[in-house]
């Protein structure tokens, strides 16, 4: 069946901001869908509030709406654009939910929009637990015993049926929010309440526990002709009980016989048919009892998912691209397998390697929350690795994580623990459990002992036990001094660094010895067919193979086959984490596009399966490899054997590739753009200070300390409060504002780990200052200031967590122009070639340079979207040798005719017990952009896009610290004028009364019930303004903020944020928000 011609225009809904459970995999799928449908000649309309996505680049859709992904806003876009169809399966749960709402409220019917890819009925059947279970019964598939409840009373009844432990699964959430395991009766009630709160429809499924069972996933694709294929099977290393997004997973499934595998295959296909997923990709999850083989269906996603992205990268089969084409009527046999180029898409990929994915967590940023892994997802990213054996892929994945691991390193704190505690660490699912399992084997435990503790399949455990046995052998005997012995170690995946640690030798020496023996990796291709057919797609991974071939077949079988073109290697950002996410992938992707446009071959290196950068057709060549010096040097060695190797781009992937710059340079690899020395100059406090002095620029008073004594002395000279942080970190890791010497001593004692031996930086904390971010382009001579952003929250809140406005909305034009001038001077002085980001604070009209990063910053995609200039592409071409004058960019620092507001999105709802107060440590996972003609509207949109529904009437609770009392009066007066009632704690109420503003007094929590938290719980508060300082006051008001968060009540913890919110409320009351496509803003696109 060919594609449908009755459809002309298709609306694709994106996933919105990056949140836990919904990350850049949906940029990958959405980008693929946009590309595929545009290629097919459809008019593509896209809505997504996330500016850091590739899909929202203006060329990927005919009309790109960077607008809030809510039913109301999308309805307005539908009204304006009148699409023929809506494709809801590419934007995660967000898109599905919006589509279901639009179908439910009649919008789709009203405007004659057909939902393609999944019907409303199919979505309901898959998402509604009870309906799903009934559907499974109908086709003879078992589910865990379960009951759906809508209240605590019903839940208590259901308990009798399921018994404990039981699993609670709220309906209609994403990433398993609120899902939990109840093991004890005492906790049952409170956990049920949490689950009911998390559900959009107050519905929870209580389910028989299959904890400890084996967990599998099947990625299925179906077309309208009922052709079904399994793209990939995935086996979870972690047994049932840990969310699959938080589990280490392996592809393909490794511990199933064919008979069992075919049961899963048949069941998966039956599930798609029964649920009614007519076309597209879905994933089905199963649990298998390891003792009897009993198989139960856990759930299915009737859409492209995180697992689809993993399966696509693991096999080379582009699920989203294919699913998009199937949605418009093609059948699988009509589509070509891109990778081979010769065979059709209607086949099942077969692989001849093992893929391991390991999730990446950031519990260290959320002190106070448990790091126990549950059925509610908490990871923020993941790394994937490909090897020719499980051991190789596991060890490659471990060093891809960038958590400091070079292999199965000993877990921290092992020395201080006794055998019982160590075993408990094996039992308890945490991010470090794999290391504890390895440690257990070091301690001499048997596979049976470890299996009893953690229920991980013995096959995996034996593989780890074998690795540890070999580690011990190496530790005892040293490195083998022959090629065969070294090759054996390398083929088990041991990194040079790990071998160095085991033998007390420098990593570089291990490498030299290995190279001396001629032990080198070969590169194999991901070809979807295990070499049965020739593949023309250069998607590669490294492995160590036996060299024991003689005779005519001896020639080395390296499939990298580098071209004879001029080439540039782009190093990606590795696994997503807080502080380094999709923004840097956006930059790497743009670098690849720009190089191709300039006729230079782009060679991408990355290990993050969620990204667009690891799509095989983003760059000319793709290496799915860990971003370590060893792995990068090996692939560069091969790339250099043919063609002209121009160099490596390290400034686009965040801190990850920057860390490799020195090592690469030392190995003689040319670094394109700004020199590593200039990067170091900007990072090195002493050298940077000298530079600023020479340029006559100011900096907050500061000091550098490598010891407790130096820190105490330095802080005393500067005067408290001070901002303190380790050097060479991103995302404000371990950055704190310290108010006194005791705080300083505590910090120095505990938190310097993030930086290792590097010194600690101490800065004067400029309270009440306005912070600004500037992104600029430079070719070494000329500088172009691309965007100047004013932070809405004051200096002291991490720039990644602060909302910001482009252009500035309070700073005067003269100061803005001076910022431009200072930025240009800095760029020239540093010899920046490419991008540079500078952060400034403005206090009482004076400008202070906070920091300068001669690389792509987190704000670059936002600036590019807000100004309509492809600044990363230009930067890449500057790095490849072109000059700024070649691009007609206009006047440096010139303002745009509209306003863009960036707002950060936080994962606090995932981490119970964590305070939501903003600070210098970055904790947001993603961002949204509000775009409109003035600040108030743009800010209003940014709030809506971030999931904050500002009230237009009701009650506002106000409680502020003393310093904020004067400004809060203004805010309160404005609210009162608009008819809001005010509620305030004693001090604030008195102050407001004195200012002539009526506010009802309410008890603080400590003052007894009924207090403010009771009021919020009862639903009588619609907006919370709460600023606070000092440990005691912060602790007192903690409950207020947490309650506002869990009850989804808008809350502002800074005065600046509150002021902006009031402006937004006023503008929203004056009329509805309009929607405008990005394309009509960017007339000044080059």
């Amino acid at each position, binding site marked *: 069946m060919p594609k449908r011609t009755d459809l002309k225009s298709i609306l694709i809904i994106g996933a919105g901001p990056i949140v836990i459970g919904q990350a850049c995999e949906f940029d990958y799928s959405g980008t693929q869908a946009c590309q595929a449908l545009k290629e097919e000649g459809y008019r593509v309309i896209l809505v997504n509030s996330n500016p850091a996505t590739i899909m929202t680049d203006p060329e990927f859709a005919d009309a790109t709406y960077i607008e809030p992904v809510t039913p109301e806003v999308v309805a307005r876009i539908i009204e304006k654009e009148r699409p023929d169809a809506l494709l809801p399966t590419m934007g995660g749960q967000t898109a599905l939910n919006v589509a279901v709402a639009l179908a439910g409220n009649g919008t789709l019917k009203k405007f004659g929009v057909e939902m393609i890819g999944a019907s409303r009925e199919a979505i309901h059947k898959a998402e509604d637990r009870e309906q799903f279970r009934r559907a499974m019964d109908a086709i003879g598939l078992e589910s865990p015993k379960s009951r759906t409840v809508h209240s605590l009373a019903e839940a208590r009844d259901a308990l009798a049926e399921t018994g404990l432990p039981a699993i609670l699964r709220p309906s209609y959430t994403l990433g398993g929010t609120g899902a939990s395991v109840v093991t004890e009766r005492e906790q049952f009630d409170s956990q049920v309440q949490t689950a009911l709160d998390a559900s959009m429809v107050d519905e929870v499924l209580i389910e028989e526990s299959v904890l400890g069972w084996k967990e599998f996933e099947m990625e299925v694709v179906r077309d309208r*002709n009922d*052709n079904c*294929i399994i793209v990939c099977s995935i086996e979870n290393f972690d047994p049932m009980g840990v969310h699959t997004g938080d589990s280490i997973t392996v592809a*393909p*499934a*490794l*511990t*199933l*016989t*064919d*008979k069992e595998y*075919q049961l899963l*295959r*048949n069941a998966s296909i039956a599930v798609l048919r029964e649920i009614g997923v007519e076309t597209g990709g879905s994933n089905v999850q199963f649990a298998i009892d390891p*003792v009897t*083989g009993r*198989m139960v269906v856990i759930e299915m996603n009737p859409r492209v998912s995180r697992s689809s992205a993993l399966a696509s990268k693991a096999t080379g089969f582009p699920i989203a691209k294919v699913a998009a084409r199937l949605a418009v009527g093609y*059948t699988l*046999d009509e589509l070509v397998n891109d990778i081979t180029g010769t*065979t*059709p898409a*209607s*086949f*099942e990929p*077969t692989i*001849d*390697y093992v893929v391991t994915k390991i999730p990446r967590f950031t519990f260290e940023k959320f002190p106070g929350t448990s790091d126990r892994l549950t059925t509610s997802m908490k990871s923020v990213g993941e790394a994937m690795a490909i090897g*020719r*054996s*499980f051991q190789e892929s596991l060890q490659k994945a471990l060093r891809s994580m960038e958590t400091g691991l070079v292999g199965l390193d000993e877990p921290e704190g092992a020395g201080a623990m006794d055998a019982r505690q160590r075993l408990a660490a094996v039992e308890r699912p945490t991010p470090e459990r794999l290391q504890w399992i390895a440690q257990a084997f070091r301690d001499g435990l*048997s*596979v*049976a002992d470890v*299996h009893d503790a953690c229920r991980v399949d*013995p*096959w995996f455990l*034996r593989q780890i*036990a*074998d690795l540890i*046995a*070999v580690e011990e*052998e190496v530790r005892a005997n040293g490195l083998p001094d*022959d090629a*065969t*012995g070294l090759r*054996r170690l390398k083929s088990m995946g041991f990194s040079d660094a790990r071998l160095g640690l085991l033998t007390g030798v420098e990593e570089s020496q291990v490498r030299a010895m290995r190279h001396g023996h001629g032990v080198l990796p070969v590169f*194999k291709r991901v070809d979807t*067919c*295990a*070499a*049965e057919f020739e593949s023309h797609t250069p998607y590669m991974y490294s492995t160590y193979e*036996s060299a*024991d*071939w*003689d*005779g*005519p*077949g*001896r020639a080395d*079988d390296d499939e990298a086959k580098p071209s004879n073109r001029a080439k540039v290697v782009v190093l990606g950002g590795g696994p997503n984490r807080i502080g380094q996410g999709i923004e840097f992938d956006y930059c790497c992707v743009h670098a690849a596009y720009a190089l191709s446009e300039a006729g230079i071959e782009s060679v991408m290196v990355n290990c993050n399966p969620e990204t667009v950068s690891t799509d095989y057709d983003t760059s000319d060549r793709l290496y799915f490899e860990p971003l370590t010096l060893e792995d990068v040097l090996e692939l560069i060695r091969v790339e250099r054997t043919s063609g002209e190797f121009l160099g490596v781009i390290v400034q686009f992937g965040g801190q990850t590739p920057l860390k490799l710059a020195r090592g690469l340079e030392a190995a003689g690899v040319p670094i394109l753009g700004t020199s590593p020395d200039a990067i170091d100059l900007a990072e090195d406090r002493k050298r940077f200070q000298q530079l600023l002095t020479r340029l006559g620029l100011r900096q907050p008073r500061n000091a550098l300390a490598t010891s407790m004594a130096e820190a105490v002395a330095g802080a005393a000279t500067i005067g408290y409060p001070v901002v303190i942080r380790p050097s060479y970190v991103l995302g404000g890791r371990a950055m704190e504002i310290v108010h006194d010497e005791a705080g300083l001593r505590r910090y120095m004692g505990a938190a310097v780990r993030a930086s290792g031996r590097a010194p600690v930086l101490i800065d004067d904390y400029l309270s009440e200052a306005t912070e600004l971010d500037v992104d600029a382009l430079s070719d070494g001579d000329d500088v172009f200031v691309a965007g100047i952003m004013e932070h809405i929250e004051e200096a002291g809140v991490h720039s990644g967590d602060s909302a910001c406005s482009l252009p500035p909305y309070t700073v005067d034009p003269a100061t803005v122009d001076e910022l431009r001038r200072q930025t240009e001077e800095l760029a020239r002085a540093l010899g920046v070639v490419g991008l540079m980001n500078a952060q400034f604070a403005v206090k009482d009209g004076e400008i202070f340079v906070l920091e300068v990063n001669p690389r792509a910053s987190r704000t670059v995609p936002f600036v590019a979207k807000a100004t309509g200039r492809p600044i990363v592409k230009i930067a890449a071409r500057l790095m490849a040798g072109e000059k700024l004058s070649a691009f007609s960019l206009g006047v440096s620092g010139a303002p745009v005719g509209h306003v863009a507001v960036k707002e950060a999105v936080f994962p606090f709802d995932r981490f119970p017990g964590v305070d939501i107060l903003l600070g210098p440590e970055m904790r947001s996972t993603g961002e949204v952009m509000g775009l409109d003609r003035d600040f108030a509207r743009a800010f209003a949109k940014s709030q809506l896009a971030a999931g904050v529904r500002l009230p237009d009437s009701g009650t506002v609770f106000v409680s502020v610290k003393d310093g904020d009392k004067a400004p809060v009066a203004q805010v309160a007066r404005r609210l009162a004028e608009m008819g809001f009632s005010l509620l305030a704690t004693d001090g604030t109420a008195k102050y407001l009364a004195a200012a002539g503003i009526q506010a009802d007094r309410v008890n603080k929590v400590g003052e007894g019930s009924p207090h403010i938290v009771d009021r919020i719980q009862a639903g009588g508060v619609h907006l919370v303004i709460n600023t606070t300082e000092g440990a005691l006051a912060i602790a007192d008001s903690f409950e207020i903020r947490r309650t506002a968060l869990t009850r989804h009540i808008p809350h502002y913890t800074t005065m600046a944020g509150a002021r902006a919110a009031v402006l937004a409320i006023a503008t929203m009351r004056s009329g509805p928000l309009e929607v405008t496509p990005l394309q009509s803003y960017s007339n000044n696109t080059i």
Partner: protein
Amino acid sequence: MGDAPGTPAFAKRQQGGRSLRAGGAAISANQSSSSSPNLSPNPNPTVPPNRCTAALVLADGTVIRGRGLGAAGTVVGEVCFNTGMTGYEESLSDPSFAGQILTFTFPHIGNVGANGEDEETARPAVRGVVLRADVTAPSNFRATQGLDGWLAHHGIPGIAGVDTRKLTRAIRERGAPSGALVHDPDGNPDLDAALELAMSWPGLEGMDLAREVTTTEPYEWDQTRWRLGAGYGTRTSSRFRVVAVDYGAKRNILRCLASAGCAVTVVPAATSGEDILALCPDGVFLSNGPGDPAATAAYAVPAIRAVLRAGLPLMGICLGHQLLSLALGARTKKMHQGHRGANHPVKDLATGKVEITSQNHGFVVDAATLPANAEVTHTSLFDGSLEGIRLVDAPVFSVQYHPEASPGPQDSHYLFARFTALMERRA
């Protein structure tokens, strides 16, 4: 199997039928010594691999050294590959691999051990096995022993530590070579002798291997398909009487027939048409099998023609499909690149639907030589080659692939229903 081709090795094959469960029990009893294979450590994880205990020597002089597994000894055959990721026990016991040394492209083979239950024949006919990774201790609730022990038990030598992707690419580019596999646990494989053996091996073309793997005596089959928790069943009704000609039949074909309500009599490959018809079948089934179809045709074609003349419903699979085509006057040819995997898309031209199939063949029917009354019903979406035919004027059809799966997807089980429908219509 280290036996030279032609050695009678089928003494027990007729037990593959009714007495199978007894045979299965015997295998289990053999292995009861390793009481819990699932929790035992991997064999010798830290033994240095430096010692070459096995080698695969190709006829072109290529020597690939590695670590031996399974039985000790030397075997010679055609080196082929299979890209399936599951079902090695089924593949290794598939009689179609007679005369072949099987390379698995998936690196980890042996993870789920062996269980006897998944064997497709009592006496595996594959000559040797080539693996990337060492065989591990098994992990699966049905495992009764490790793959290494299973291979040794069946007299099959193997080699691990081979870059199987490189070997596969070589086979893809240059065709399946003749090779000799030597496993010498003492670490002194005689490479010269192996090369001589490989060079002197005549290759599969012209080789009638069906005769080696077929049953010697007819037997009845009533075991039905496998179910989780219940294992194999026993046929309860018999709607049709089917004679299955065993050119190297996989048990699952017989099970699929039994599950479809057929009382199956399995007869030796060389059974004459007269003898087949004397059993008064409602339909005749031609099984899969190894070797060169042209060689087996010498005695198979006359028998098939007799069945065709009788107008009986007839179904053929793989070699059976090729022999049927030969009986119809078509020709077969050796493929440059055979089909060896469980992921091959085949299009049913009648319905337009795509089925994912299990395939294992190196010869193919030349579509251009089919007679006018034969219609192409299925084609490969990988290379467009012929995958199935039917006669427009008789209840006869055949497919090149393996609808019985085992291993592989079960999308094509519907063909057995198509066969019984033909018998139904005629009754």
